[in-house]
């Protein structure tokens, strides 16, 4: 019974977002990934939310920089993204935001990709108010700019955190050893 319900939910997502999605993948039996252009994100979130059954479970940011992987799926994505005519967008410099919507056992992930140079996303807070916390996290941890999000203050990092340093990006390696009074070996 659980299996058929899962299958129904997976197909529901496919039907709901048929007009917006660039591509679908089914990475695991209870998951569906929907690849979206950033411009269609809010509309897709609205469609999911309006069903009344899907809820936003989390938003994950991923920095793909260090991944040396070029599996076929990844290559397909790269072509997809390039097809959106975004320039300066090598695979190595890709940031991705994953919007996980859940219903029953199914996790539907809306995936949007951005270049490192100028990553920005529309806010989905107008549709899902509870997304505010996750969007603040995306902004401070990955440096993704979300212009129309209601609150832009730091959520997790201190207020005096240096501007332009995004700790969950792969190129962040920490600030080095703290200075010890009287020298390191004193």
């Amino acid at each position, binding site marked *: 019974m659980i299996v058929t319900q899962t299958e129904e939910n997976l197909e529901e997502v496919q039907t709901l977002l048929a007009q917006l999605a660039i591509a679908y993948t089914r990475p695991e039996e209870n998951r569906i990934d929907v690849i979206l252009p950033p411009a269609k994100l809010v509309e897709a979130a609205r469609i999911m939310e309006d069903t009344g059954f899907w809820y936003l479970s*989390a938003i994950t940011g991923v920095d793909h920089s260090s991944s040396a992987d070029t599996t076929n799926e990844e290559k397909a994505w790269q072509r997809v993204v390039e097809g959106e005519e975004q320039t300066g967008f090598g695979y190595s410099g890709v940031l991705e935001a994953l919007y996980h919507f859940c219903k029953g056992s199914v*996790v539907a992930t809306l995936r949007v990709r951005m270049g490192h140079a100028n990553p920005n996303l529309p806010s989905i807070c107008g549709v899902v108010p509870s997304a505010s916390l996750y969007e603040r996290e995306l902004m401070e941890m990955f440096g993704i700019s979300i212009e129309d999000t209601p609150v832009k203050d730091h959520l997790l990092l201190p207020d005096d955190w240096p501007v332009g340093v995004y700790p969950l990006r792969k190129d962040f390696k920490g600030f080095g050893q703290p200075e010890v009074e009287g020298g390191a070996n004193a």
Partner: protein
Amino acid sequence: MPETKHGDKFIVPIGPQHPALKEPGHFEFTVDGETVTGASVRLGFVHRGIEKAAEERTYIQDLYLLERICGICSHVHAMAFALGVEKLAGVTVPERAQAIRVLVAEMERIHSHLLWLGVAAHEAGFDTLFMYAWRDREKVMDLLEQLCGNRVNYSINVLGGVKEDVNDVIRDGILSAMDYLETRTVLYLKLVTTERTLIGRTRGIGIMEKQTAARLGTVGPTARASGLERDIRLEAPYAAYLQYPARIVTEQTGDLEARFIVRVKELYESFRLIRGILSTLPGGELTTKMPRRIPEGETISRVEAPRGELFYYIKSNGSDKPDRVKVRTPSINNFASVMATAVGHKLADIPMILSGIDPCFSCNDRMVSIRGSEGQQAVDWEELRLYGIEYYR
């Protein structure tokens, strides 16, 4: 945040040292006289950078690191991570190990719910119940120590199974403790539904409608108290929950009393599951061989922590270290419900509404300052708690 008008509105900052959360948080409540008109949250005061740290450690090291995210529901963190990594590695964990994981998870739920019952009773000024609940909680803590070797951060999980086995002595100990706790739970259920002093603080307060709870993405007992049937143990059974199915406990009223009732009734459910597991514990090995390097891939692991759905996203890159680990704890989802339900309530109700979502209480003293147009008036949380108790006296 709403604008502060001089003279007739005050912003009451609560925190940052706030025990009601896994992470100390800073809440600001805008009040008009006694009534709360707005609320906002600021987290991160004990941000430890665990997600980043996890990327620089091996999977085995991460298991111990992630178990230390929370001192109350530590087992579910390790279990969620282990289940995810095992899925990525394509490893099948022995049945006995999965059953022991569920056993420990349910014992942890009992300990967590009793802890919450005590803390919430304390916030309401009902310290007798607080003492009772915490005394009984010691029973479960002792059993966990006997089984795992630790009272907290049990460390029973390894990648590919569990470390410790259940022998006859431990089994009998657990079973007799369950009988004792069940008689105590009868008392607790009677108290939270009939004790006038407690009902005065809980009935009809902090009401969240089912639709609101669904829209805000509320999880766990907070959602179930609003009639929302959300429980990962049933929706997406993991570990051994397919063999030992949990029954969902819901209430329809959505107020603080319902959150009390749901959590107390869930104790019965845990007793039943634990007895079921111990009577039919499958035999066999405890662990299976795990590869050190995890094949490339990504997975999502969801488990039902005592506070609700715990969400792990794990991305592996073929090495012995994960590429990305994202942890979303249930309290994050439930914050939104505090922000929404606090509005329109009295300041005196805030301690109860905050504790109603069962955020982790890690320390007992916190600063509250009442800030207005004429400077700041600082009081500590204890004073706000007493203020709430006095208000309802």
